[in-house]
């Protein structure tokens, strides 16, 4: 047996960032070209926006459709990234099961780039999703009562929220063999987060035991932050602290689990 005759320099951090950005640009290409990719990140929140404003606001909002819309839009901006992460899980599972990740892993790029590319690339999807909800909401009569800086802060926070909670979807995308099975599993987690919140109805209209969950739900906390930022109602700092603790928790739990599952799945 001959001994190896050559060695190669390791992949540097700058090159890793470059590969990650190249891979992340896949999402931008898709959003630019395909209406399907845009629908994928906007359909769910827009449906909710229309349904709740036009159909249910009379019943839930006490008849004042406009006042209900003002409360709903900041909440749906939190709801959006949650649903975007379902697509993240599907996309990752597809990439792995179809062999696209094998192709990437056979290239001389950083080990972390394929996965990092997926996570970073989703910034574009969160951005489209959140801004479309805000824009369509505004067309329907939603009004920002604060200032542009607050709007930017709100959109930035929503993207950060998505980047933290997406690790749950990443884990599911790695663990499941079939992309078709991913949404079913994730809906199970996304439903209590999105509907068990104060996005669609005020917490004090619910039974006491439900309120216990609704009041600690990160979606409720982030909705409170968003309403404060966009409408100038209530405090930002209190709920933001709670939201940040949740986000850090999501990353602390699901990031290491995802890394372990990733190494296992690709090691076989």
């Amino acid at each position, binding site marked *: 047996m*001959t001994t190896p005759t050559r060695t190669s320099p390791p992949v540097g951090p700058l090159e890793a960032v470059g590969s990650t950005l190249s891979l992340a640009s896949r999402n931008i290409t898709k959003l630019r070209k395909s209406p399907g990719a845009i629908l994928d990140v906007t359909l769910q929140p827009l449906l909710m926006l229309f349904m709740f404003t036009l159909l249910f606001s009379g019943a839930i909002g006490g008849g004042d459709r406009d006042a209900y819309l003002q409360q709903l839009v900041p909440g749906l901006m939190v709801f959006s990234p949650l649903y975007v992460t379902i697509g993240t899980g599907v996309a990752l599972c597809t990439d792995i099961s*179809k*062999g*696209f990740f*094998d192709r990437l*892993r*056979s290239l001389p790029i950083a080990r972390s780039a394929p996965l990092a590319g997926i996570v970073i690339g989703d910034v574009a999807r969160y951005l489209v999703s959140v801004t479309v909800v805000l824009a369509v909401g505004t067309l329907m009569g939603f009004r920002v009562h604060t200032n542009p800086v607050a709007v930017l802060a709100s959109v930035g926070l929503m993207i950060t929220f998505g980047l933290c909670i997406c690790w749950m979807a990443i884990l599911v995308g790695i663990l499941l063999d079939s992309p078709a099975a991913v949404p079913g599993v994730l809906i199970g987690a996304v439903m209590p987060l999105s509907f068990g919140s104060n996005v669609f109805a005020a917490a004090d209209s619910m039974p006491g035991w439900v309120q216990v969950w609704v009041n600690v739900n990160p979606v409720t906390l982030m909705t409170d932050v968003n309403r404060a930022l966009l409408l100038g109602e209530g405090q930002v700092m209190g709920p933001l602290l709670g939201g940040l603790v949740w986000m850090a928790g999501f990353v602390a739990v699901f990031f290491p689990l995802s890394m372990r599952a990733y190494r296992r799945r690709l090691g076989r």
Partner: protein
Amino acid sequence: MPLAIEAEGLAKRYRETTALRDVDLAVPAGTVHGVLGPNGAGKTTAVRILATLLTPDAGRAVVGGYDVVRDPVGVRGIIGLTGQYAALDEELSAVENLTLIGRLLRLPAADARVRARELLADFGLAEAESRPVKTYSGGMRRRADLAASLVGRPSVLYLDEPTTGLDPHSRNEVWDTVRRLVADGVTVLLTTQYLEEADQLADRITVFNHGTVVAEGRPDELKRMTGGQTLEVRAARREQVDTVAEIILGLTGQLPARDEDTGRLTVPVQDPELLSALVHKLDAAEVAFDELGLRLPTMDEAFLAITSPGGVRATLTEEKLR
């Protein structure tokens, strides 16, 4: 000739199953090496180890001078991989896929696009280059995938069952591509379930079964390993077929198999000297013949003999012991 791929004692286990056990491979640069075996024989596991996608539990492998375990990035810099699945992003067009790979290989954006277009044109995909890959037929996908594995101008190319599920026309296109690449000096490791494919393309063949190497050699050597050759005779006049059959029976002690459509008689023989004896007897009996000859068994016959329990494998083991 320098070796492009060299592996020694490769082993891989998954929980209870042994996927690979004590596998050796030596592939000289610029040749096609066929890895032949039924489903589950360990072919894909071996390719994944050599492509650095999987770490072996034991053994060593050096590809193009780089150790697959200690220097995977070095290996990845010189290999191309085409898996059993078309490993492209199906939402993107072929040109976008190949440009992305070019970018990941640190080509400037414009160069990456030129390289993508050039390769897709080579593979007859110029017209379809801007369509999403999910709209492609099976053959087009396979060609696009093969093109993708060539963006970095690899010197070692792994083709893992590149023609499985393809129609004969697409399969011939893949074969032509492989021949073209080898002519350019690329080393190809090809796994296949099809004997004909290995026979057509490979300079040498390693036969896998149950995770181990059961035979290795040139295609004609493997065919010969099954022991003996096949005698074929076709009489010019159909009414003489029975006479020929009797002569063969007299010489070999075996009644030949008869093809009713053509009247061709075949019989396995161990001793090639038999051919001249047969010609004498046929002459004496005044039998004219259209065909007469000895041939090697087909790859199918060889493969069955090699992988069947107690077949050539047993013989090989005995030889090793001696």
